[in-house]
């Protein structure tokens, strides 16, 4: 989350807006914002409805649930539902015509899209903007 915060000024200069989406309730999102000094919208997708429409949702198995609970992470409490489903980390860029211009998801949750790839795509979109 902080990596995206770092490139936020560049995203804005390229005419873009950054939205982060998590299954957490708005209260928990606010805590995330404050804790990380984030200056972009953090949206609350309770029940992973939107993540589902982007194809990102998967259920956690019983063994993994036990591990989460062992670490004190009760997803039912954080997310306001007891589905124990999570979104894959994924990043998308959507242009003015509501077309997906960048799509990145990885089943390995420690991998993320490099911020530079986001800026590259935004530059391509900006450069098209002036064309007839």
């Amino acid at each position, binding site marked *: 989350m902080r990596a995206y915060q770092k490139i936020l000024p560049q995203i804005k200069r390229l005419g873009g807006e950054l939205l982060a989406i998590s*299954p957490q309730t708005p209260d928990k999102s606010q805590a995330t914002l404050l804790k990380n000094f984030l200056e972009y919208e953090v949206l609350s997708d309770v029940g992973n409805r939107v993540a589902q429409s982007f194809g990102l949702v*998967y259920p956690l198995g019983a063994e993994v649930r036990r591990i989460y609970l062992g670490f004190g992470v009760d997803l039912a409490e954080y997310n306001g539902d007891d589905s124990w489903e999570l979104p894959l980390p994924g990043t998308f860029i959507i242009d003015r015509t509501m077309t997906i211009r960048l799509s990145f998801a990885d089943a390995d949750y420690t991998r993320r899209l490099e911020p530079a790839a986001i800026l590259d795509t935004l530059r391509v979109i900006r450069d098209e903007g002036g064309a007839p």
Partner: protein
Amino acid sequence: MNGNEATLTIELQKDLDALRQGYLEHAPPDVVATMGKAAEELIRSGIVERTVPVGSPAPDFALPNAVGREVRLSAVTARGPAVITFYRGAW
């Protein structure tokens, strides 16, 4: 797989790899094994290939922000490109 991985540069990945290394060193072996197995199953499920690809229409949505105000994707993209990033939560 959707091509964008080719544009990855290494900086962020190095940080994340270091994080993961730290996690693997400190977590109990049975936890590491279970999480590793779950990750492999997830990859095999083909979920990554089923995410919405480049060139397809984005599903519109309206979601509450941290203070409960509704934000609609199509309203954002009317102003300019939207970068949306899904994360699991900060626990």
